């Protein structure tokens, strides 16, 4: 061996060692198992605290062999990764690549062939201080061709901690891995199950445009649908409608599951949620959906500001001034006092909310839905807001006696003062409390309680500030006539809110009922006005009070008619529609002389909507109904119309959809809950033949 040769060997050895060392940093060794090789790779060789980066478990099965998706299908097993990470380092769930479907006889599986990258995102906390980052993935898989072999591997890498450095050797692999991922979308999608059929509606124009004939929908829940039968996919211009047979082994409703939509051009993954009446009604509501889409933080900020404004009310502001003086004179306890006072205020507000929640629960137990799609509630809220506005305008006063009650109690502990402050202030705060009550009544209990706590905190805020920063007292404006003017200005938004409630009411029940409600509102305003006159003239108090009660009674009477009347004007169908709104009278009248098709539906019923899209409001069915002169009546159970409830009960149903065909001289024929154009046509033709 020459010196030259040995030198060469020496350098080769050094180069190899260097390659191996750098390589070792960002990739594990390849673990060979029967029919599959596994490896863990990192996009970075060197990472820093606070960084998030991707790692991938790379599975390379033999040709023709596959591993499984999150839902493996009829058999098989999804690959599972258990991570071992140092403290301060966390990892997200697997980002599954675009799956493929494998059919084996009458069974199907979902999985991946070829090089498969299971990406996961690792987050390092800001405080991570170690010099290296060891990552271990224990991977369990099932690899199958005709038959299956379970395998597992423990794959480890150790990254350096320093300034971030990409692993040059894995750039291509990570770009391949990302190319294999579906796009993620936040399209609204709901599913329900009726008559052993799963119906999914994706409410998005892009989703609808995926339906180009090559679309397949991978359902990410294990025992929800039968995997082998393809089911049906249809679309309107803005919705994608997927129907699949319910799995034989279905047992639990998933709350939500991933849906992977794949056609020859795009692959998109989204979440599908269970369509519940309650879930749907939150979206169908109005006030509810606005703030919840605003998010809770914004609502709480509003509550805080609202609570703060309460301090400017004429009967609160003097208390604030007194308290400010008190705090200024007792600097030593100022902070403690301020805190106790705050606690007292918040406690009282939360208590009020709790009482309200209890009342609501009682109401719900009586079957009274506190949802905004209930026109009765909307009508009552309109009355409430008119009363609030008139009160702020000074037409009448509330509980002025309470003001006197609270006096002389200032020496109590600060907590009690806080409690009392809320009570003392109630004559002025009541209008605003009314708003908060009106809002809270349609919220889930925890949110309502939080909102009230924020309101209390807002109200106590000036005292807190005073306690901690006594100098703030200098900025306090002096009490005076301006406060009354301010209060009166506050009436304007209340009137506007009433207008909005009336608009909602009108949309729900029609113009006739709206007119009646307006009459009720005027009578109610008259009642409050006469009451207010009584307050001003104690001599004629009895007479004025009697008069206002009379007006209240008439108001109640008219209000009752207004809400009774609701179904008459309900959602009158635009003339371009082929259907008419169902009423029992109309149905009876029509069915004597001509065929009638009744469709009982609701906006939150996914199956109902799907049926209308694919089988009822289609060209084919329109033509069919026209040809046989069938009148199409649609009953909308979204508002739980009691007459529809009764109709459903006649057919032993307690829910929608329900489709009934009435042919003169025949028994009514109930159609299946899952409709197609041909099912409707067959039903009609059968009825016609049996005449």
């Amino acid at each position, binding site marked *: 061996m020459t010196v030259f040769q040995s030198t060469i060997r020496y350098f080769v050895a050094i180069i190899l060692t260097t390659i191996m060392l750098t390589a070792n940093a960002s990739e594990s060794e390849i673990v060979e198992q029967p029919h599959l090789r596994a490896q863990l790779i990192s996009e970075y060789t060197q990472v820093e605290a606070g960084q998030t980066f991707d790692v991938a478990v790379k599975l390379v099965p033999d040709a023709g062999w596959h591993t499984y998706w999150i839902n493996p299908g*009829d*058999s098989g*097993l999804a690959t*599972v990764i258990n991570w071992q990470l140092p403290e301060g380092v966390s990892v997200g769930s697997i980002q599954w690549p675009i799956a493929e479907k494998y059919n*084996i*006889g*009458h*069974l199907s*599986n979902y999985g991946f062939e070829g090089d498969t990258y299971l990406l996961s995102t690792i987050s390092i906390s800001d405080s991570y201080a170690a010099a290296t980052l060891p990552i271990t993935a224990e991977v*369990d898989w*099932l690899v*199958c061709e*005709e*038959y*299956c072999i*379970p395998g597992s591997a423990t794959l480890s890498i150790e990254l350096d901690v320093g300034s971030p450095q990409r692993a040059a050797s894995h750039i291509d692999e990570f770009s391949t891995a990302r190319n294999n991922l579906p796009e993620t979308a936040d399209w*609204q999608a*709901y599913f329900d199950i009726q008559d052993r059929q799963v119906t999914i*509606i994706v*409410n998005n124009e892009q989703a609808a445009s995926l339906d180009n004939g090559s679309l397949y929908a991978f359902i990410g829940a*294990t*025992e929800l649908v*039968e995997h*082998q*039968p*393809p*089911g*049906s*996919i*249809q*679309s*309107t*211009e*803005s*919705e994608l409608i997927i129907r699949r*047979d319910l799995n*034989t*082994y*279905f*047992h639990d409703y998933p709350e939500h599951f991933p849906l992977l939509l794949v056609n020859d051009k795009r692959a998109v993954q989204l979440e599908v949620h269970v*369509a519940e009446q309650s879930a749907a009604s939150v*979206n*169908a509501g*109005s006030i509810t959906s*606005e703030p919840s*889409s605003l998010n809770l933080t914004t609502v709480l900020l509003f509550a805080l500001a609202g609570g703060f404004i309460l301090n400017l009310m004429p009967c609160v502001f003097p208390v604030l001034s007194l308290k400010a003086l008190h705090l200024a004179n007792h600097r030593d306890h100022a902070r403690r006092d301020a805190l106790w006072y705050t606690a007292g205020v918040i406690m009282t507000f939360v208590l009020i909310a709790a009482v309200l929640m209890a009342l609501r629960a009682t109401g719900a137990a009586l079957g009274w839905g506190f949802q905004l799609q209930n026109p009765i509630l909307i009508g009552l809220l309109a009355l409430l807001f008119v009363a609030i506005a008139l009160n702020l305008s000074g037409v009448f006063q509330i509980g002025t006696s309470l003001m006197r009650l609270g006096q002389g109690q200032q020496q109590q502990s600060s907590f009690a003062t806080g409690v009392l402050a809320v009570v003392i202030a109630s004559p002025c705060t009541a209008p605003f409390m009314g708003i908060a009550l009106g809002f809270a009544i349609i919220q889930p209990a925890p949110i309502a309680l939080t909102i009230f706590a924020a309101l209390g905190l807002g109200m106590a805020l000036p005292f807190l500030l005073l306690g901690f920063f006594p100098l703030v007292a200098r900025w306090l404006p002096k009490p005076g006539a301006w406060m009354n003017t301010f209060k009166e200005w506050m009436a304007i938004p209340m009137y506007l809110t009433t207008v*909005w409630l009336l608009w909602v009411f009108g*949309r729900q029940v029609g113009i006739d009922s709206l007119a009646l409600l307006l009459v009720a509102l005027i009578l109610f305003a008259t009642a409050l006005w006469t009451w207010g006159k009584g307050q001003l003239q104690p001599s004629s108090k009895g007479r004025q009070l009697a008069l206002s009660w009379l007006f209240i009674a008439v108001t109640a009477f008219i209000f009752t008619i207004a809400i009774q009347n609701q179904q008459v004007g309900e959602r009158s169908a635009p003339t*371009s529609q082929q259907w008419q709104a169902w009423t029992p009278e109309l149905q009876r009248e029509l069915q004597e002389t001509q065929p009638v098709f009744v469709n009982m539906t609701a*906006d939150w019923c996914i199956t109902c*909507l799907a049926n*209308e*899209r*694919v089988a009822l*409001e*289609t*060209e084919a069915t329109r033509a069919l109904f026209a040809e046989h002169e069938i009148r199409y009546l649609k009953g909308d159970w979204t508002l739980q119309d009691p007459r529809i409830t009764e109709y459903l009960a006649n057919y032993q149903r307690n829910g929608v959809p329900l489709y009934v065909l009435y042919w003169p001289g025949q028994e009514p024929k109930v159609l299946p809950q899952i409709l*197609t*154009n*041909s099912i409707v046509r067959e039903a009609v033709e059968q009825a016609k033949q049996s005449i």
Partner: protein
Amino acid sequence: MNFKTKPFVRKAILGLAGALLATTAFANPEVGQPAPGFNVIDTQGATHTLEQYQGSVVVLEWTNHDCPFVVKHYATENMQSLQREMSEQDVVWLTVISSAPGTQGHVSPEQADELTSNRNAAPAAVLLDEDGTMGRAYAARVTPHMYVIDADGILQYAGGIDSIPTANHDDVARAEPYFANAARAVLAGETPERQVTRPYGCTVKYAD
């Protein structure tokens, strides 16, 4: 401020895709209904039918001795102990092999008997369903796939052997024994709490 933020706004319909694709659903047996009949020979050449076991609780176990999920329950003695527990209470435990000739799990009658004695298994009989007729009648999908039929011939349970769908032997002890719970309930004259569960395992290797 739009009041109608409904998830589905009613809109006019444009042209829709044509008729629905015909869904050719595989006929599945239903729990609470009479179990499908069968007529299959065992390793001794004797014929077994559901009718002949009228009056007895019958357990059906689909198997494929090379399937890792089956191995999981035999290597841990879970399956054998269930077979003993059931036969002591006069349950007719029928192990069914629906693997077609030439596929994984297909065995000759002699091999089947050998497997039974090697594994110390205790079924009443091992049925050889080479052509898959019985498997298809029950829509048996995987091995192991378990069924419990009550003394009146009503299917009371169909599904997996337990709650953890892995091939990991350690999971047997950790899992909720769905099948065993169901079989015990039927023996006690009750309706099982869970009558269908996820059947997990290897696909049954049917003849095409």
